[in-house]
């Protein structure tokens, strides 16, 4: 806007000074709020702001120093959380580079995963990985969503096949463009309420068509079995694609509400729980808390989406669907 304003002023031969970001009165970065704007205007006019916003903020910061951060995290039931749990197990003991991309899965950047070597813009992860794979010894892997796959990943895939590069691409296929509000895209199954006349393009067909040597599809919630599927893809010489498929939890809930399918929450059987807190520390599902008297994990029914992945990772098999018996010990590995 600043540059266009200057251009217009020049066209009209106006002899005015136009101040903005160019001379540093306003920052190139940041989400602006009132204090930032007031300070910018004051500095342009050579004045001091009338209100001391720093003082207000300082007082507020003291009051809230007790608060834990509320970082962005995957929703309860999010298939991405499950996929990343399996990836985390599969890469144990390996040196990996993990290039992240733009979508809900970007949150792998945050705890407890802290898994991100780079994060740039939509579709960048495969291009970067392709380059890195030619100079690094590490396993190079990257992740995109189904929407980002169609939007900006195809050239990178062609490039990886053409040069036969050792990269593993995860496509987290949750049926919709989740982060921006569950919009449809060319890979969304037709029976999800798509308008008439749209034709689904399957991600696996595209990958095989381009000539990817190793394409595998996994159910995001099948976490334990997925670990080996992931290891195999990482060992494959040449480009490999792993499609992790499960509908976005919020989108899935919407469909369930429409079809009348119930959402059955999980609960912890305190008699079995030995309180290793695996569900809490490794999983970060927002539906988990623990009781202050005995430290046994507890699932908040208002938040739990009933995906049941926590039951699969519990080392003691103490989590079960409401109204069902706890799963037998076979869950333990």
């Amino acid at each position, binding site marked *: 806007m600043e540059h266009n304003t200057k251009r217009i002023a020049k066209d009209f031969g106006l002899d005015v000074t136009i101040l903005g970001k160019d001379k540093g009165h306003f920052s190139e970065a940041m989400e602006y709020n009132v204090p930032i704007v007031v300070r910018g205007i004051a500095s342009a006019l050579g004045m001091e702001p009338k209100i001391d916003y720093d003082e207000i903020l300082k007082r*507020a910061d003291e009051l809230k120093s007790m608060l834990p951060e*509320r970082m962005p*995290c995957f929703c309860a039931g999010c298939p991405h959380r499950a996929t990343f749990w399996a990836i985390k197990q599969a890469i144990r003991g390996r040196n990996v580079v993990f290039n992240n991309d733009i979508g809900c899965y970007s949150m792998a950047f945050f705890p407890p995963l802290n898994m991100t070597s780079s994060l740039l813009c939509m579709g960048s992860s495969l291009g970067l990985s392709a380059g890195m794979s030619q100079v690094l010894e590490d396993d190079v892997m990257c992740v995109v969503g189904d929407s980002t796959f169609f939007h900006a990943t195809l050239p990178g895939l062609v490039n990886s096949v053409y040069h036969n590069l050792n990269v593993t691409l995860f496509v987290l296929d949750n049926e919709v463009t989740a982060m921006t509000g569950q919009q449809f895209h060319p890979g969304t199954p037709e029976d999800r309420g798509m308008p008439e006349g749209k034709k689904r393009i399957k991600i696996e067909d595209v990958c095989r068509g381009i000539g990817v040597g190793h394409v595998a599809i996994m159910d995001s919630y099948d976490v334990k079995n997925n670990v080996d599927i992931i290891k195999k893809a990482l060992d494959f010489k040449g480009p490999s694609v792993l499609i992790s498929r499960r509908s976005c939890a919020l989108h899935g809930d919407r469909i369930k509400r429409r079809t009348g399918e119930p959402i059955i929450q999980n609960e912890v059987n305190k008699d079995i729980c030995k309180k290793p807190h695996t569900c809490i520390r490794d999983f970060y599902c927002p539906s988990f808390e623990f009781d202050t008297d005995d*430290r046994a994990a507890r699932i908040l029914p208002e938040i739990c989406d009933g995906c049941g992945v926590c039951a699969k990772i519990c080392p003691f098999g103490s989590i079960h669907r409401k109204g069902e018996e706890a799963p037998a010990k076979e869950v333990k590995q």
Partner: protein
Amino acid sequence: MSQDSKFDLVICGVGGQGIVLLSNIIGSACAKADLEAKTGELHGLSQRSGTIYIHMRIGGDNLSPLIPYAEADAIVSLEAMEALRYIEYLKDDGVIILNKRVIHPPIEVAQLSKEKRTDFITFDEIKEKLNSVTPNVAPLSGLDLAKEAGNPLTENVVFIGALSALKAFPLEVEVLKESVAESVPKKALNVNLKAFDLGYKAAYDGLCQSVECVEREIG
């Protein structure tokens, strides 16, 4: 009721509590009442469980939807910690309508687990901090009231009812209820109106000693 006065409101809470819908309901009530409303939403990356806050400026001749620090007339917080997170926006002696619900973020739960501690942040600790800024804090159990009304999903509507207790809030009860009715499924209308009334009553009881409130019978 001061129909033409201005009201700056911060609405906050945790993703999934129906906060955007809540602000839409108030916004369309403003349109019905011919009051100008400007609003700006800030929600984190996550659709659920992240922190959310919305600025809403009703009436007045504001050019910007953003409320400056220390100028909000009220904070409506659907989760207790979040009221404290945005406390810099509240004016001195402003009103806080505060849900007693404390939703512990995974990072807090995991940290306590690792350190083998059990001292979760409590509602009372939060309220004490808020009271150092303003005496006008109305705590209410949004989720319990919503359940009492017949559906836990009406938690957000409880807080619209709560706002209607404030004399300074420039929207009439009828307009607010009309707007609620247009925004919720038909079969859930009665539950929502009950949630609205329960919210009104709880806020009235919590605030009428210190703040001017609207008196009305609830059915």
